[in-house]
Each structure stands twice: as C-alpha cells, then as structure tokens.
C-alpha cells in the first residue's frame, strides 16, 4: 500500500473534520435562530436534518427528479414541517414559557422520528452525490466532491443569513425580538409571526444540512438525536445566539473529533469534543463568541 506521510494524514483528518463540522454548524445555526427569538431550545432540530435527508431521497431516488428540482422541493416540504411544528406544538401553548416550549419540541421530535420510521422504515437510505463520487487527490489526502458541496452550502447559508438579518425588514424584526420580545410587540412587530418565521428558517437550514450529508454517510430515521446533540454542543461552544459562534463551534467540534480519533484514540472521539466544551465553559461561560451581557439577561 502507498505510504501516507504524517502531514497528509493530518490534512486528511482536517478535511474530514471540516466536512462534518459544517453539518454541525448548520444544525447549530438552526438552534440559534429559534433561541434568539424564543429563548427556547428546539430539540426537534436534529429531526429536521433527518427529514431533509429522507425527503430528498424520496424526491431524488423514488421520483427520480434532478437535484435542481428535488432540493428546493425538499426544503419546501421540511419548512412546511417546521411551520406545522410551530402551529401545532408551540402556538397552542397558552402561557409560553421556555420550559413549555422545550417540552413541546421534545415531544415533536419523538413524533417526527416515529412518523419517519413508519414512512421510511428502519433501513438507511443513500443519495447519489451531487457531482459524482471520484475523490480528488490533494497533497496526499483525498477530498470527496460532496464534501466540497457541504462547505459551499454552509458558506451560502452564512452569507444569505447575514444579508437577511442586516438588510431586510423581517431580519431586523427578528433581531428586535431577540433583544426584547415585549418591546418589539409594543412597536408593532407580531412576535408570534416572528416565531413562525424562525421555525421555518431553522427547518430549512436543518434540512439543507441533512441533504448534503446523506450522499456521504447515508441517512436513517434515528440519526436526528445524535446530530442535535452535536449541533447543540457546537452552539454552546460558540456562544448561544451568535451565528459566527455557531459556525466556529461546529467546525471546531468536527475538527477535534476527527483529529482526536485519528491521533489519539478512536474509541473516545466523542469525549474530546465534550472535554473541550467543558474547558471553554469553565473559562468563558458564555461561549467563545457569546456576548456576556446578553447571557446575563437570557435564561439559558
């Protein structure tokens, strides 16, 4: 077998880490959007990823529609699921407290997972990659074309979100709700509507994460929980509520996992990321890029 130099090994670990870290980052961004507006954690976030992957399998494989058609369709379907989650689980809560919303999302997560099991069964599903499976050789390491798509989509999401929050009216309204929901409703922002929008956006971004990772690592009905946990860790690591924190946290967790598995011990790879998380929280409880003042006001 061809020898692989240590530098190439490191490069390979980095490539893997960045790929999977991008998916964690997308999940973390989804958490942040809902957290910013409602101060609650949406535990069904991982299930949106799972739905994205499986619904895309339906459109792309079962109905054989090309990617340019099936991708937007999938995002629409999962966004609709997110809207339904808000309408059916969140909105009916008469005294919306953070705890009530968290419990509602946990229940919704179980429901979505059960529904996925009924519809798709327990077997894993595969998606053809967007641009072929031939790995690209790079300095002794190997990059999958699909991995490049993952990072590209993350970049697109970050750019679009930044434009949305800075330049559009609805984006500003969402930011206002994040700062102070009561004051926002006093100036005429419909907070319930903003909550709906935040769920819709989180669902869409989560779905995108699920879609791009499925060609690499298959998707099955119960992958959501693991993605949610890793995404949430990324969120906390980067600072709850901060988008750049979410991206940074996601990439860091992905890299630490990959480097830890390769260089130290693969059996304990989940531990490394969590140890890092604990150390950061001890030193800086609001997360790496989280705002200390905002942390004092918010409950989480």
């Amino acid at each position, binding site marked *: 077998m061809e*020898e692989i130099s*240590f530098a190439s090994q490191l490069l390979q670990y980095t490539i893997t880490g960045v790929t999977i870290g991008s998916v964690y980052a997308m999940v973390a961004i989804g958490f942040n959007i809902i957290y910013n507006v409602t101060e609650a954690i949406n535990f069904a976030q991982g299930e949106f990823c799972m739905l994205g992957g499986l619904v895309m399998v339906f459109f792309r494989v079962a109905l054989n529609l090309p990617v340019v058609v099936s991708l937007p369709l999938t995002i629409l379907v999962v966004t609709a699921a997110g809207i339904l989650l808000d309408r059916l689980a969140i909105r009916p809560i008469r005294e919306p407290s953070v705890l009530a919303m968290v419990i509602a999302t946990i229940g919704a997560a179980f429901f979505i997972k059960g529904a996925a099991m009924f519809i798709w069964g327990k077997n*894993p599903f595969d998606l053809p990659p967007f641009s072929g499976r031939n790995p690209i050789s790079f300095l002794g*390491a*190997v990059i999958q074309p699909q991995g490049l798509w993952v990072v590209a989509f993350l970049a697109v999401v970050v750019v679009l979100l930044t434009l949305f929050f800075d330049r559009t009216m609805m984006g500003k309204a969402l930011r206002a709700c994040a700062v102070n929901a009561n004051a926002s409703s006093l100036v005429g922002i419909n907070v319930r509507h903003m909550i709906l929008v935040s769920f819709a956006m989180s669902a869409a971004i989560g779905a995108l994460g699920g879609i791009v990772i499925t060609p*690499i690592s*298959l998707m099955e009905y119960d992958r959501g929980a693991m993605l949610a946990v890793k995404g949430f860790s990324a969120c906390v690591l980067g600072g709850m509520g901060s988008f750049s924190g979410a991206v940074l946290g996601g990439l860091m967790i992905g890299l630490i996992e990959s480097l830890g*598995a*390769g260089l130290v011990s*693969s059996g304990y790879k989940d531990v490394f990321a969590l140890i890092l998380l604990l150390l950061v929280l001890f030193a800086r409880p609001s997360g790496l890029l989280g705002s200390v003042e905002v942390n004092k006001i918010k409950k989480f």
Partner: protein
Amino acid sequence: MRTKCSIGRGAAFMLAAVLFAVFLVTPVMKVEAADPYKVGAVFSVTGRASFLGDPEKKTAVMLQEEINKKGGINGHPLELIVYDDEGDSTKCALAVRKLITQDKVCAFIGPSLSGLSLAVLPEAEKHKIPMVSCAASYKIVTKDPETGEQWKWVFKTPQSDSMAVEAIYTHMKKNGISKIAVLSVTSGFGASGRSELLRLAPDFGMTIVADEKYGPKDTDMTAQLTKIKGLAPQAIVNWSIGPTQVVVVRNWKELGMTKVPFYQSHGFGSRKNIELAAGAAEGVFCPLGACNIAEILPADAPQKKVTMEYLKAYKAKYNEGLSSFGGHAWDALSIVAEALEAVGPDKAKIRDYVEKLTGFVGQHGVFNFSAKDHNGLTKDAFNMVVVEKGDWALAH
C-alpha cells in the same frame, strides 16, 4: 313452597353429582388423536431488533403452516404461539413465563437477542423446559466458560462470533496475511467480535497493528481508516452492523485503499448492503451461513436442497428477500419439530433427543449436538464469500 324447595334441592344435588363425575372422567377422555403440539416462540418482532425478529417470526409461521399442510407431526397439528418482546427484557421474561405456565408449551424457540436470551434462560432451567435460542452469544449455552459445561435445557442455532472470526482468519492465513488492522463499532455486537478477534489472533499467527473503534451512529470513518493507512496492514477486518458497515466500506474505497483486502463480519450478509455501498463493496470478503448463498452453492453441497427450498418458499410467501436471521428460526423450529416427531411432547425427552442429534442439515450449517456442545456448529458453518459484480461469489 316447601315441596318445591325439597325437589329443587334434590335435583340440584343430582346435577352436581353428575357434573362432578363428568369432570372426574373428562381429563382421561380429553387426550384425543388430533391434540395439537404446542411450541412457543418469543421474537423481537418490533422495536430496535425488528430486523432480527420480524423475519424470524415470518419464517416460523411459514414453517408451521408447511408442517400442518403435510398433516402435522404424526397426525398432531403443530400450534405455534408467538409473542413479541419488542426488544425489551422485561417483556421477554413475561412472555416466556406466560408460555411456560399459561400456554403450557412443551418447548420454545427464541429470543432473538443475546441479552434477552441470557435473561430468560434461568426460567427454562427452573421449569425444565427446552429452549432453542435464535441469538448468537456463546454465553447462552455455556454455563461455565472455564470447563465448557453447558446449560442443561438451553440450546442455540446461530453460529458464534468465534466461528466467524475463525473462518476469516483461516482464509487470511491461506492467503499469506499475517499483519492486520481491526475496526469495530462500540456496540455489543462490535465489542464481542473485537474481543474474539483479539483472542484468536495468536492462534492463527495474526499480528494486530491497529485497533480502531467508532460509534454506531457515526457518519464518517475516514479518520480511523487514515490512521490505519499510515500503519500499512496487509488486511482490514471490520466488525459492525447497521449503516456504519456500509459507510466504512465507502470510506475505504474513497481513500484509495482497495489494494488492502477488506473483511466484513457476518452482519454484512444482505444484498441491500452491497447496493448501499454503491460499488464500493467490490472485492470485500465476508463469512456467511449457507442460506445466504443458496443459489451459488455447488449442487452437491449438503445444505443445497434445504436452503434453496427455504429461499423459494420465503420469497413466494412474503415477496421479500431472504434474511439470514430467519434462517436461525427455521433451524430452531425444525429441530424442535423433528424432536416432537421422534419422541412426542415430553419436555425431558425432547431435550435428550436434541442433545443427541447429529447430522441435522439446517439453514446455517450441519448441526452436531452433544452434551458438551449445545450449539452444534463449527467454523465450517461459515462460507467465505467475496462481492463480485454486485453479488456474492464463493471466495478462494
């Protein structure tokens, strides 16, 4: 009034006496020629292990219908009472107790999982009823690993992990491989396989240069494979089940490591896995029980006939692909049925018969039971196959 009462009392007394006499006599008269033979079955039909229990139940039911269509066992219809334990040990224990005490079965097959089998075997021992498990751990039949003493009333039909490992190591040794890397999933199945791989390596002259692990829900194993690539082994063995066994093969191909022979565990034995690997499984080796490769067995192989029949019957009845695990249930129920035919529904006689049974041609091997071996199989129960052009082929 008084006259009516005295007549009424008298009539009632007579009626009671008659009924009492009838009840005394009835037990003797109840045994008729067409009394059904009751066999119990506990499978994880739903829940986390439904990929095991569902085909097991389907196979058992199909076999029962076949037997009854042919007139039953010595004229007695075979009654199969199936319970679903949902992969839960409490439900499993309750189901087994119900089968023994309420349904009064003469033997039972299952459970589907090793953990559950270990949990319920004390019931079989306590009530002195034969149990034929469809789960793989050697601990199910072995009471004392030091002496090899077997549990008196417990048998099992699946091959043990050690046999799969022996089959793999034998093939490797034959092909001049001595330096290997081991990859395993951190679940019970993976851990058990890994410990057998480590334990048996010195017996076959194998040196393990890498021992990597991953979680059952991990999405990517390139880090582990990259590390292995750096250590340059002559072959890689992976022990997992579920989507990870497909992802690791894809990673193996993507990293350009296809010159290093890749061996999977017997958990890989399904055409669906080859399909999901999307071409990456070409050249991958795997030990499989005969029922998985019925079509490519040579015509004079001892198991050819039963495996081909099972394949055709299962496909015709359920219109789905054959499952390796259904084969374990076929073996278990067939062994019990043969015992019933030979000695009737006496629990102790069934147990003695099975313990002495040799040369039984089953789906997963030819069984030779003995007092020291309640599993009855050796590593020859596994055939080494290689993936060629998207399908199984016998390996050399």
